[in-house]
């Protein structure tokens, strides 16, 4: 990461690097990120390299380059917080209101102007482009993204993560960890268009083994849909349905489905590879 610092310009568009560059690891991340560290520690974060840029009278821009350990993990951290339009920088990126988020290979980059303005916005994008040039080649998506049926899949709404802190920030499900999620589980959360206008939601969880998947399904249904039938199907609100089914070490949960049949078809169309 020290090399990275040397390859990123210290003066960009009238903004100058301010203070010392710093590097934090999994143990020291709390010193830098108050309230957000756990979200990153739920992934395979290795290090974060940080630099501040300043311009007189225009505030400060924070540049953070996260080595997420693998391209899949970098995909994950970007995917859990997609609210802005694409920025066209790096392998994938979003930009809005002074916050640029990029993934490139195993790196996730955040460039943020605390005080959003035209000048700082331009500088944020310029810094982002300069950083990407230093980060190396693109990398693959998580394999589970490829399991999803494409029909009616909402673009840019698919998230990949491991732990319940990520799930609850993406879609609050419960106050307790009713699915038994942790760093050993892999999760995909996706949205599908329906005729009602409200998306059906698909949560796909891969556990280390079938026993944990079975226990998680039991726990989920007990807490979230105690009235479910043996198939794992239950009505929820406004004629919506929830379904939880197992396939070996995978648990598939469909939420907000407009009908039982839609829930069954969505779950059945997930292309989980044979063992």
């Amino acid at each position, binding site marked *: 990461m020290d090399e990275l610092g040397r390859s990123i310009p210290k003066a960009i568009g009238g903004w100058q690097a301010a203070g010392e560059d710093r590097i934090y690891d999994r143990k020291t991340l*709390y010193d830098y*990120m*108050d*309230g*957000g560290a*756990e*979200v*990153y520690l739920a992934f395979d974060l290795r290090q974060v390299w940080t630099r501040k840029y300043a311009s007189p009278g225009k505030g400060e821009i*924070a540049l*953070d380059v*996260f080595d997420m350990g693998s391209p899949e993990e970098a995909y994950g951290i970007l995917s859990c*917080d997609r*609210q802005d339009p694409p920025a066209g920088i790096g392998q994938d990126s979003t930009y809005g*209101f*002074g*916050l640029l*988020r990029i993934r490139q290979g195993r790196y996730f980059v*955040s460039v*943020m102007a*605390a*005080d*959003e303005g035209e000048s700082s916005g331009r500088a944020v994008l310029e810094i982002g482009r300069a950083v990407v040039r230093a980060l190396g080649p693109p990398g693959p998506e998580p394999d589970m993204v490829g399991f999803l049926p494409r029909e009616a899949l909402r673009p840019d709404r698919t998230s990949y993560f491991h732990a319940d*802190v990520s799930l*609850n*920030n993406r*879609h*609050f*499900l*419960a*106050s*307790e*960890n*009713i699915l038994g999620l942790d760093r050993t589980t892999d999760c995909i959360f996706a949205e599908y268009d329906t005729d009602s206008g409200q998306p059906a939601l698909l949560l796909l969880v891969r556990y280390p083994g079938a026993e944990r998947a079975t226990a998680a399904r039991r726990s989920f249904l007990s*807490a*979230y*849909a105690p009235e479910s039938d043996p198939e794992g199907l239950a009505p*929820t*609100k406004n004629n919506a349905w929830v379904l939880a089914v197992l396939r070996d070490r995978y648990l598939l949960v469909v939420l907000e489905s407009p009908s039982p049949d839609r829930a069954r078809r969505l779950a059945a169309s997930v292309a989980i590879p044979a063992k």
Partner: protein
Amino acid sequence: MTHPLTRRDFLKGTTVVFLGASLGAGQDAPAAKKTRVVLVRHRDVLDDNSAIHPDILQGMLDEAVTRLVDESDPVKAFGKLVKPGETVGIKTNVWPYLPTPHDLEAAIKRRLIDAGIAEDRIGLDDRTVATNPLFVQATSLINARPLRTNYLAGMSGCIKNYIMFAPSPEALHPDSCADLGSVFKLPIVKDKTRLNILCALTPQFHGRGPHHFSRRFVWSYKGLIVGRDPVAVDTIGLRLTMAKRREVLGPDQELPPVPKHIRLADTRHGIGTSDINAIELVKLGWDEDILV
């Protein structure tokens, strides 16, 4: 595991585990035996650039504390909280994007001095309170910080502000910071907190990115939420946060994930009340868009 609150419960409106029953019930019932929380607002405390008018802020603090302790004079009101000769620590918050305003720190300090506390016996600290001699020796604490959301704990309020007193703050992170209330039972803190001030001048109701901050999720509410009970103060703060989230983000995102530590500070650690029916909320000043 206790029965978890699920999204379904929340959408059905059974959020009493987080919020108690309706706030209206809490206001209409007799005030006896209730925990008083004062919400004071002033239209002109911030200018168009969100700069603070110190005199107005001082007046808001004075108004809140006098009402809190049923005293007409602000110096006498602070005199009910601290005594001359004490060492007092002001636990502030230095989070760079939304710190405790210096003007609020100054207003608190001024009244402590007025009440007879020697200036060199007043500590002001955040990150090093656990080892700061003025906090180690303190016989009274004032807890002052801004209201904001948090990825992990749902909300950062007066309860969470004391995490830096813990020997290992990270050890309090599991399960959405469920046991933050335990910090108030540590010897360095126990029974010392005289006043909790949740600064809602520019609260933050949502967060984005690694630093959980964006100016678009901060609004000029121009208020202070003040009480002797940190749990009751945070309960009102959470209610305000949820009201703003509902207004801006929609009902599905009303609840920031997952502010369970506020309820557990009451039910598990017994350091205050999160039952809205046991809180007497006194509203003073500007009431436009008050939300709670």
